[in-house]
């Protein structure tokens, strides 16, 4: 059915125009979001101050997270900790932001194979790892490179350089890191059966 433009009221025209503007802004946002360079991705993790996209570990609140990252896809309390989860390019795993006493204490970012960020890039940024821990997938070469004093750790294959996760937390020592975040990790790798 054809619509006569002249018959549309001014109010409706304004509404449609607003929608168009919003749509254009949304498209620009999406395009920018996907146009990050490796440097951008590395800069997301500033270990010295444990920050991620204007969020500061140990300080930022839920509102700040929402303002910076957006509304989470999933939000729940677990063991008195507030978890905010955001979908990623891996449909099986979400990014996680964890708050204790209303302050951001832990971030887990999921990295997929198409991300250009590699183990070598992060090592260039943070130097040699302070510790290496082994957890799920260690039997096929996955390692966790831990920098407790810098508040960052990442999991990946050293040989081929692929990353699977990057963690941010408040700077701490290795023992506290293991107790608080690394319960599933040990000092020795598993063998493949």
């Amino acid at each position, binding site marked *: 059915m054809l619509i006569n433009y002249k018959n549309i009221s001014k109010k409706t025209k304004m509404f449609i125009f607003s929608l168009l503007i919003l749509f254009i802004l949304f498209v620009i946002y999406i395009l920018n979001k996907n146009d990050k360079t490796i440097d951008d991705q590395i800069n997301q993790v500033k270990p010295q101050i444990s920050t991620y996209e204007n969020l500061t570990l140990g300080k930022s609140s839920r509102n700040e997270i929402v303002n910076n990252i957006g509304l989470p896809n999933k939000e729940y309390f677990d063991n008195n900790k507030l978890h905010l989860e955001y979908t990623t390019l891996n449909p099986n*795993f979400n990014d996680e932001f964890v708050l204790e006493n209303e302050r951001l204490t832990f971030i887990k970012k999921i990295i997929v*194979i198409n991300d250009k960020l590699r183990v070598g890039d992060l090592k260039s940024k943070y130097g040699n790892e302070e510790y290496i821990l082994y957890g799920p997938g260690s039997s*096929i*070469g996955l390692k966790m490179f831990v920098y407790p004093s810098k508040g960052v750790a990442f999991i990946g294959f*050293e040989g081929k350089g692929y990353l699977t996760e990057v963690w941010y937390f408040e700077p701490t020592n290795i023992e506290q890191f293991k107790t608080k975040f690394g319960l599933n990790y040990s000092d020795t790798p598993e063998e493949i059966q």
Partner: protein
Amino acid sequence: MNKVLADILDRPVPKGLSIPKVQALIKEVAMLDTNSKLVYSASGERIIKELDKYGVKDIPQNYRGVLLEHWLELLSQNQETVTEVPRPTGPDATTLTSDQLTDLGESAEKRTQQKTTIQAREKEAVARFKETGEKRYQDQQREEALKEKQAQELLNQFFKKVGGKVVVVPVGEILEVQLTKENKEVLLATEIAAKEDPATTQKVFEEKIQLALNNSKQEYKDSIKGEEIKKTATHLVETLRNLPDHKSIDEIPDNPKSLNTLSIINPLSNPNSPEMIAMIPDKESREEFAKKVQTLMLTAEGKRVIDLAGARAIFGEGGESIIYSLYGPDTITDFKISNDEKDRDEGVEIDPQAVYEKGKQVYNFINKVRQAKSAEEVTSTALAYYPTYTYSGVTTATKTVSTLTKALPAVGAVYSFRQGTLLAHWAKSGTPLLSAGNQNLVRLLTSQASVQEIASASLVTFSRPIIAFESGGVKVLLVTGTNKALGTQIAVGGVKFGQKMAGAIAVKGGTQIAVVTGTQAGGQLAVGASTVLTKVLTFLGGLSTPVTAGIGLVVGYLAGKVIEKLPQIKKWFQENGPVLAGVAGLGGLALGGPAVGGLVLFGGLAATGSLAAFATGAFGVLGLIGRSIGIAIATPVIVTLLVLPPLVAFIMLVINNSAYVVPPSPYSSSLNGGADNPYMLVTKTANPTKLDNSSSNQTVIYVVSIKALKGNLTNLKLVSTECSVIKKDKSKVECPTEFISDLDGASITPGNDGVFSFTGIYGPKYSDSLIYDRITISATNEAGEEITTSGSESVCIGNCPTDCLTVEGTWPAQQKLNIEKAREYIIANNSDYVAHVCSQYPDGLPLKYGGSNGNLWGYFKGTHLLFYGKGTDSESNAIYTLAHEMLHALVTDLKAVEIYLKYIASSAITETPRCFYSYEAYKLEERLADAVAFSIMPVRYCSITGKDSNINQWPKHRDFILKEVFNVN
């Protein structure tokens, strides 16, 4: 009066004498009496002494025989338990005294008279015994009848007490079936063909089954007749015609849940469960009840086995998911009897009396068939129950044939299988097998089965929809149906709005209407605003086979709760329509049932009994087994038609073949379709096994040795031979022709192996290739069981494609043989996988042996694969272990680790392929390695799941592996 004789006849049988002993003495005495040449006998003296022990010292020698005969008569009358005694040895001298000779002569006439007397008495005794025996038998029968009557009376009290209803609620997981796009395309194509042109579709199905039979064992060919094939095809057509009308594959869900229909009555089969004990306190009555339920279940299980075999011949191995969605999974879902009043609104109601009566009927029929003296008699009995019909009418044969040819896979063979799910479930839940009759059924079920005739009947009809319209995102439908057997009516209506839907179901005879709301594809459902039917609806939400089992279940559940007449349904819709529309408008719940991919709200059928309604509704679309059970309860005759012929067919199969295989235990595992067995070892060797490339023909002599490991083996038969040529350059070359004669039913004994040989000739075209050969042989062991096993061998010509996987180091001979054969098997069956792995190891990936090492099977050690005793103790275990470890070698850092990254980002990890190794549950790399092994190795029984290892159970893994691991696009 002969005082001596009178005295003899008054003498009771001394203690310690038995019939065999007396018989032995009579023989000896008779020999002494009649051998006129005997003058003295040492054994005679011994016999006399022996007799004297029993107080016959004062009896004249010539009367001793009479006395013994008398005692024998007395003993025979009393029918004492006999115990064999050592027999006296024969005479070692041939002399007799003159007195003895005189006595012998005088007594001859008397003995004749005495024998006549004794014979007369024996006749009297036999007559008395018969009379007594018959009386005892009659007493026994009366006693049993009385017991049965008492048990029946107690059961009747129970039936009366529960008011015809026992409620069961699901407590176990309802399994999902994963339908791939290809599955759905096949399903849709066959469904449309069956609806548009049933006659041609039936014909095509028949042809496919016949083709499959042609590729099958002789015993199947012999036992499956044309009429039976027709019935199988008819049934499948009927099942497909009962599907809702799907217009596209998008309307068929990806992961419908599916329920083994036997799950519902399974809680009634265990006489030891606390709920059963509480329900029927009297032990005998309870066991009598459970026995009949078990009979019913076993029979239905047999029926299901037949259905699956028939469907497999049509849909092929790739169609397992289709088959399971049509016939339900193997696994029995746990239900429990609930006495909780609130569960009456949440569970499924079963009429225990109807189930019992049906079980009794089947039980009696089984006994009747068992008494048949010949296969012909069984057949004639069965034929009396055969419903026969063939679709007719105008056909568009060419189009249908073309459609089905494209949709259905190439025909394989009808293959044997063993059925152990129900038994394993009973074993685990402690359910005893209650009768010998049922044990026989178990034997039948665990024996090889095959496609048999399957009865079918159009039991449900649906009218054209009364209301049916679609506008925007809203669809509305109201349809009525009739149970042809009972004449009862049902009406089902619903509305779908986007993904939300709700439905109303009405069955004639009820008192109120019930409303179901929910979301497509298995969201949480609620009924109206009243009590949430949590347990039932948890699976209802997903119990959406492509044939809307869910709605059927609702129909069953609601059988006692829905309104009585159609006008009231209409009225209800008029009154409640706006309310429901309002709900839909809010984007919340809309009208409609737990329908699948559209507003498909039929599949139900009204019946008076709730289980019947349940079964006819839910089962009607799940498969004939369920339907037959359900309808049988209400209409025994129809059930007889549906359930019994397959049972008879089973028995015929057994009679015809006189062989069935009972697996050693429900948890036994075997590869190669049960080929590995403790009775027979088949080894195949080639000489030479390594040839250089040559421009002329080269000859290889193959020798097959068949060894009997435990007792004699008879009826040796060549079941099949397989051959494949794997070229290094991946070009295709046909196998050479091998001339192997059949074994003609030969026999072998332990230590006396059967050996035969044949020749393979390989020309230049076989350069740089591996020729893999496998031979499968069957035999009958001393227990009458048929056993099958295989032997394989390969020949490497030139630079054949095994260069990466080298067997190195020290190996035990048998383990080495197994790993070599495993390597050959994998190369022969999946050279792409081997090539992929080897591409990562240009310097080779050695296979080494690491000792027995407890329960460990194998390790990937970075540069080589290490195998242990258990992982290579059979060819089948070696295949699994090698295929599994090769994946680890492939998917590791610095190799093809990208596969892992793609895997963890794929939907495949939502599935958990499991069989007998527990790490798959939480280690993704192990899950993938096992899935690869399942894709390659012959299907085997899985101790963890109780199912088998067929990779088609995990289609996302299958597809991922094909693409990323095997590199097959």
